[in-house]
């Protein structure tokens, strides 16, 4: 037995000893690493989300930081804290700073307010990647959700939640009237509902993305239409309000609440688990962030001037419900941050 192991070990080391120099020679000839390093080293990547205080932004930032620092670049973030003016100022400052970023990753507040600024950034030789919120602007890539599709998934989830024997009355709690995520989400929902004429939208108030407003309009909606079987709230940041109104009315079992979110475990999965939300159409953070990373790496090596092409890199979305809830349904912000600190 022992002799056998010894022989096997000897044989293995012999194989390694003979082949290692050969592999070394191949690696020397690979032009990849040198080209990669030349294109990437010292490059600056800046992320400007709507705010740094919500799950997705913190998730993107953690993954981007690791990757950018991994190729020897510098990564920085700006926190507009939900203010369009502060965001515009941050972008202006980044564009005009001495140490311009090479890639600007921006989450736009609405369809138009950043468009001019981002064009200016491209004119200054900065690649612009739009994330998660679409805008009227030819970015070097859009990475994020297809919000029309997201609305369609929500509509399908709410129809399934209501079921055939129900009143088929649905309420919408929209965000606002300017944000692309709200407009496209609505369009997607209506696209599906137009094909299912038996389902009917009975009210569609705005929450202005505020939980208290969401609660108040949902309470009114339920007063007016006590037989509603499902509600779609356009964001999990304010859907806690719609959930509160449903709870106050004692209708948790009768109303199917659908919303959308970033898929963070203490947020999405915890709330699906405890019944606050019945279904959450959620973003696959890792896939989305890796797509951003891939675009950064591609653009920096492409040699093309900014504004050459504007592909849409849509991330697949999944609908998390109590039935399909599993340990991989969500990602953990705590885990991500702990992993970053451990390095």
């Amino acid at each position, binding site marked *: 037995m022992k002799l056998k192991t010894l022989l096997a070990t000897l044989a293995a080391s012999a194989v390694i000893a003979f082949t290692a120099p050969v592999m070394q020679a191949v690696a020397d000839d690979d032009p990849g690493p040198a080209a990669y390093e030349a294109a990437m080293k010292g490059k600056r990547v800046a992320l400007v989300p709507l705010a740094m205080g919500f799950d997705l932004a913190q998730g993107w930032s953690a993954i981007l930081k690791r990757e950018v620092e991994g190729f020897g670049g510098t990564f920085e973030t700006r926190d507009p*804290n939900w203010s369009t003016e502060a965001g515009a100022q941050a972008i202006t400052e980044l564009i005009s700073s001495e140490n311009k970023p090479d890639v600007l990753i921006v989450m736009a507040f609405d369809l138009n307010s950043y468009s001019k600024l981002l064009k200016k950034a491209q004119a200054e030789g900065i690649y612009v990647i739009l994330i998660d919120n679409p805008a009227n602007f030819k970015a070097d890539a859009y990475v994020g959700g297809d919000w029309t599709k997201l609305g369609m998934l929500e509509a399908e989830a709410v129809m399934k939640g209501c079921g055939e024997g129900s009143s088929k009355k649905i309420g919408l709690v929209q965000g606002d009237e300017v944000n692309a995520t709200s407009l496209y989400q609505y369009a997607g929902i209506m696209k599906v509902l137009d094909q299912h004429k038996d389902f009917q939208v009975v009210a569609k108030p*705005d929450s202005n993305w505020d*939980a208290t407003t969401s609660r*108040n309009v949902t309470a009114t909606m339920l007063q007016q239409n006590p037989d509603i079987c499902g509600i779609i709230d356009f964001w999990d940041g304010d859907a*806690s309000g719609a959930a*509160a109104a449903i709870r*106050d009315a004692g209708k948790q079992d009768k109303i199917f609440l659908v919303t959308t979110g970033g898929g963070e475990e203490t947020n999405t999965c915890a709330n699906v688990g405890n019944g606050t939300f019945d279904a959450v159409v959620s973003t696959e953070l890792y896939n989305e962030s890796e797509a951003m990373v891939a675009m950064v790496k591609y653009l920096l090596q492409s040699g093309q001037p900014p504004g050459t092409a504007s592909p849409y890199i849509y991330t697949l979305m999944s609908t998390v419900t109590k039935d399909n809830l599993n340990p991989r349904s969500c990602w953990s912000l705590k885990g991500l941050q702990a992993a970053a600190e451990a390095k």
Partner: protein
Amino acid sequence: MAGGSSHGFWSQERIVLALAVALFAVAAIFLPGFRDIGNLISIVHSVSVLGLLAVGMAIVIIGRGIDLSAVAIMAMSAAWYLQLLNDGWSEWQALGAAGAGVLVIGLVNGFLVAYAEVPAIFATLATGSFVFGFVRSRLITQDAVPVPPGNWLEQLGGFQPLGIPPEVFIFGGACFVAYLFLRFTKWGRYVYYMGDNLLAARNMGIPVRPMNLLRYVISAFIALAAGLLTASSLHSMNTRIVNSTLLYDIILVVVIGGIGLSGGKGGMRNVIVGAVLIGIMQNAMTIIDIPNLYQNLIKATILLIAIVIDSLVNPRDEQTAQQGDI
């Protein structure tokens, strides 16, 4: 005498009350389901936290001043309290810490106004920004902090005798206590004297500086209560509310109810009338399904109408003209 009644019959409070009654009547006739007892409860519920904050604001404004840090204190104190609970602090430690923080901010506001003699509008604007920035960057990790499962706040939110949510009782109770304070205590009367004429009040020997401290501390604690109530209803506290129009809505309730920004007049009745008017308007507009942008426009127009009618019916007197507002 304090109160709108010194202005003849059509005081602003009565104009607004008439407006509210008229709106209510129109809505009750034309809007289906508006008169339902459930809908009436939800109208009051929807403005309870707003009204509670307006009680604190009214006490500050009547004594001549303004507290622009109220919403920041409300959101950030509750969020910090929840964060401490989530970090494993015990109930009393967390509540004690949040209470101490709120006390300090109230004292700082009062000190800046009373002793450093910084105009209230600037002092509280600055402390509000400071509270938001400090708590958001140093003490909590995310915009929204959830209520830990099984916490008393969850149970409070679920405690609804007769289908009436706890906010309604607490708003009502706060109005009553504030009414007793303003009408029947020495300190309450001082608030009116100070608001009416600060120099005269000081010459009379009223401790105007400690009284200023007291008002801002009361306002800060009411804000904490409003934050905890919001958290109990929504099962989380989202600090984004600091960027919302809530602060202006509070001032709207106070002003529209007829408590002049120049101080010295008005009372809890005005707060209730103002809050109820806003509640009826918002509820009716939601039932009709008016988009948000137009809701704001309509709210602003009604405020303007109330102010214009007030200035026509009740021309400003010499004293206010000399002192100016705020």
